[in-house]
């Protein structure tokens, strides 16, 4: 059930929010490859991703991530309104010390050539989601955490997401994806987990 941790791990982690144990004694090691995380609504999938991202306080246990802070893309796009898609992605890449790189190229690849210089709040939900997912290419971190990335995406964007994940896997990145649409990438997954009532099991 447990793998040798390479890119990241959680060791006996418990997360308690509002006096309720959302995660109970979770241990998980993530090496290069795609790991799918399933589970019913409210099972704790988002909390598990946030624990790996360092955004959820650990009541017990230890979190370890190598190669710099992970790329975490949550339910919402996590981009600042008032800035354009290009400015948002350039800021986040620059903060990691990566430089602006080919932000424009990545946004073009996600079909946002004509939208990248518009304020993010003027884009549709699907376009904002595309812009946030373009970070997979602009930041290229060893650990990528994606929370329901298929939400708001059309069929073209689904193809693009699949391609971006495959490229990440070729680069040796570890991708952990919480999703209900596991069939979309099931054949590419190296590991599959189900989280239910705060407990994790590999399937």
């Amino acid at each position, binding site marked *: 059930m447990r793998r040798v941790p390479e890119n990241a791990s959680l060791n006996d982690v418990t997360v308690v929010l509002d006096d309720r144990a959302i995660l109970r004694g979770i241990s998980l090691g993530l090496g290069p490859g795609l790991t799918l995380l399933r589970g019913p609504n409210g099972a704790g999938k988002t909390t598990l991703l946030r624990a790996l*991202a*360092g*955004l959820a*306080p650990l009541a017990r246990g230890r979190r370890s991530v190598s190669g*710099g*802070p*992970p790329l*975490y893309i*949550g*339910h*919402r*796009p*996590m*981009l*600042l*309104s*008032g*800035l354009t898609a290009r*400015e*948002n992605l350039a*800021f*986040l890449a*620059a*903060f*990691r*010390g990566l430089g602006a790189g080919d932000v424009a190229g990545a946004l073009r690849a996600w079909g946002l050539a004509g939208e990248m210089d518009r*304020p*993010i*709040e003027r884009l549709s939900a699907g376009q*904002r989601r595309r812009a946030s997912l373009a970070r997979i290419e602009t930041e290229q971190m060893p650990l990528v955490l994606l929370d329901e990335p298929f939400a708001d995406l059309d069929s073209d964007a689904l193809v693009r997401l699949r391609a971006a994940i495959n490229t990440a896997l070729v680069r040796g990145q570890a991708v952990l994806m919480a999703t209900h649409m596991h069939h979309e990438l099931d054949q590419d997954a190296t590991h599959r987990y189900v989280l239910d009532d705060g407990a994790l099991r590999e399937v």
Partner: protein
Amino acid sequence: MNALDRALLVAARELAAERRRPDGFVAALTFTALLVLMESLAFGPGQARQPGVASALYWIAILFAATLVATRSFDRELEDDAIDAVLVLDGGREALYAGKVIAIAIVLAIVALAAAVLSLVLLDLGVALAGHLVLVGVLGILALPPVIVLVTLLALRVRARVALVPILSFPILMPQLVACTQGAAAALTGDASAALGWAGILAAFALVYGVLGLTIVPAAIE
């Protein structure tokens, strides 16, 4: 990239967003102008022109303006969970605090300048020591954001944040408000040593709360 570079990067991001969507700036400017005007009318021209009263009215307006700018700034961060993208990064929490303090101080400086011109013209105030008044103004602007940003970050996920931030931060800011008011009044009346003394106190407050914020914030933000 060092800590200062990261803070400046956050500040630049904040100012770019505020420039394109100046909600906080416009709200603070309108509110400050109206407050100065209304208070001047309420007190009457004779009383409102007294240096102590004019300074107090001005700095109370600036204190509320600072809260407005900070609240709007963090509303924007929470809109699409944009703040999480920064918090997850190495040094993100410190940079977010310091960058917000810098950006809010810059926005507040513009609001304060406009309000100062309005106060001086509206009340026909005489300024005995202009340089000292500017010094007190600059240090006052630097002394307010470290506390307001710290309290806003600590109350970030609280539903009643808009009400809670002034309730929690204003008592902490009372010494700074007194120093701003007394320092400005001393500069208006020509008491150089008193103005410099109050300015020194403001500098100390800015430094102490700036360091305190950088120390507390990394562990305190959820």
